[in-house]
């Protein structure tokens, strides 16, 4: 059923002349109206959502190269291969998992450490607050391919960052191969860029939280002799804890699932130093030509899903603990 058919059906259902009907028929008609309204959304979801989810789940228990007519069922082998059994795949995955974990923790912590002071500074000033907020927000709006190329440009061997470091007399920090080609700096550089990209939203949330604090409460506490440290600890901080939890979990989730920056900026290089799980799943699914890796790709996708679900459960627990 297409969207227009559904809406005309809904129109017919709801404009039919009213005549005395039993309560039951009224209720049945209202139910039909409800179904007609949600039909386009549900149809789209059944086809593109449920079908693909079920398909991917089934495929994770099979070996297939995308071309042969049948799947070869292998049970839990794909999961086993990823986690420990395959001598080539398992270490690669472990490396990617470690990189993903490092990035998740570093991005979340880094975001809080920059966004919170930034928001409180911004909250303390009056002039230029709106302008600065807009400027700080730009990295979020433009997150994507274009900005990643701009970063690549400034991080080249002769790019602006290296030249600036040399000009400042910090030449020892410059990377002659470029920051992304140097195994020691590739992952940390990407982490810094991810923090740069996630600070805006975090700052906005902290700013909203800080503005919700009643200044009268802080003043009263100050009159009662509470110093600035105690005011921060007992009044401001408790109100910011739920926001911090949200920021951290958002950072963990986005870093675990997002691999676009890795795909554009390093594609896992140099030599696997920036491999992450999302990128691995992507490569197994789309860049193995004829080898039967689609099952492995699906299994890896589901392992990432389980991790995301665990995070969501922890999230719900932590937020409930707050109340």
């Amino acid at each position: 059923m297409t969207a227009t058919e559904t809406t005309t059906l809904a129109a017919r259902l709801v404009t039919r002349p009213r005549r005395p009907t039993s309560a039951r028929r009224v209720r049945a008609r209202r139910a039909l109206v409800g179904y007609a309204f949600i039909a386009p959304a549900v149809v789209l979801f059944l086809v593109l959502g449920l079908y693909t989810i079920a398909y991917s789940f089934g495929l994770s228990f099979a070996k297939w190269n995308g071309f042969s007519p049948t799947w070869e069922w292998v049970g839990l082998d794909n999961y086993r291969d990823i986690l420990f059994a395959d001598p080539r795949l398992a270490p690669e995955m472990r490396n990617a998992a470690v990189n993903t974990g490092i990035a998740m923790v570093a991005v979340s912590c880094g975001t809080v450490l920059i966004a919170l002071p930034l928001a409180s500074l911004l909250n303390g000033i009056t002039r230029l607050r709106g302008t600065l907020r807009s400027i700080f927000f730009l990295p979020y709006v433009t997150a994507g391919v274009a900005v990643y190329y701009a970063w690549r440009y400034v991080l080249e061997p002769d790019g602006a960052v290296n030249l600036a470091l040399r000009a400042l007399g910090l030449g020892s920090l410059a990377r002659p191969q470029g920051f992304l080609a140097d195994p020691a700096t590739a992952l940390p550089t990407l982490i810094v860029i991810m923090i740069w990209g996630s600070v805006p939203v975090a700052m906005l949330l902290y700013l909203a939280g800080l503005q919700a604090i009643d200044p009268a409460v802080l003043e009263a506490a100050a009159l009662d002799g509470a110093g600035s440290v105690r005011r921060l600890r007992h009044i401001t901080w408790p109100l910011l804890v739920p926001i911090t939890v949200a920021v951290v979990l958002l950072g963990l989730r986005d870093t675990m699932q997002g691999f676009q920056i890795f795909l554009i900026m390093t594609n896992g290089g140099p030599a696997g130093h920036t491999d992450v799980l999302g990128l691995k799943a992507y490569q197994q699914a789309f860049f193995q030509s004829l080898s039967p890796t689609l099952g492995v790709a699906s299994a890896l996708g589901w392992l990432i899903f389980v991790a995301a679900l665990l995070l969501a459960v922890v999230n719900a627990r932590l937020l409930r603990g707050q109340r």
Partner: protein
Amino acid sequence: MRRLSAGAVVAYAALAVYAVVSLYPFAWMVSGAFKDRLEILEGGHLIPRRPTLATLADTWSRLHFFDYFLNSLKVTGLTVLGVLVVYSLAGYAFAMVDFPGRRFVFWFFVALLFVPSITVLLPLTILENKLNILGTHTGLILPFVNGTAPLAVLMLTAAFRAVPHDLHDAATADGAGELRIFWRVYLPLARPTLITIGVLTAVPTWNEYVLTRVSLNDESRYTLPLALERLASGTVPSYNEIMAGSLILVVPVIVLFLALQRYFVNGLSGAVKN
């Protein structure tokens, strides 16, 4: 003018430093886009010595970025339209109409939030291949619309619930059917939420790259992010052209953001609270 205290000076200095950090890659993007093929190789200076519009003009017409811009506009526009139509209908039903299974279906949509896109990327392309829409703009728009379901359903249901129920009762007493009430009463009242969702859908769709890359083969259908990637991975990529392409890609989003800033701010805080 009031004199600033020492604390305020430190605060402004720190904020200024971060403003520079925020703008840093954009500044170089603009700088690169206005340099020619030779000057881009010299590097090191932000302000071009021989600023030229030729690189931008060349990227826009000879490298077909105008066509890719139109493709992006089409895909993003239709996705936003689809999201607004499909999920405002659904959100209205979830908020206002009683039907069996309402809560169940609602939470099903919300649960979608937790499925990582990489998990369904592969089966999605296989399915689209069977349906013969892989590689078309339809094949991008439909999954983009579906991907926005959790956010749009949550926010629109909440927005329709916030409308006083008396309005619904009064309209029903006047003999208006649900579709009429929805269209005439509720949709206009939900305008701020609709704009917010439109903006929150438009920006990631405009920037989308992963599904686009594995779907599109035909160059005439490329959207800007894919065109930019192809330009950058060509045989003789030149950073002045890449930066010009990047600039063409980000400027519309920045304009949209500056125009609708307050919807962004409200929407993001609302989305995260949910």
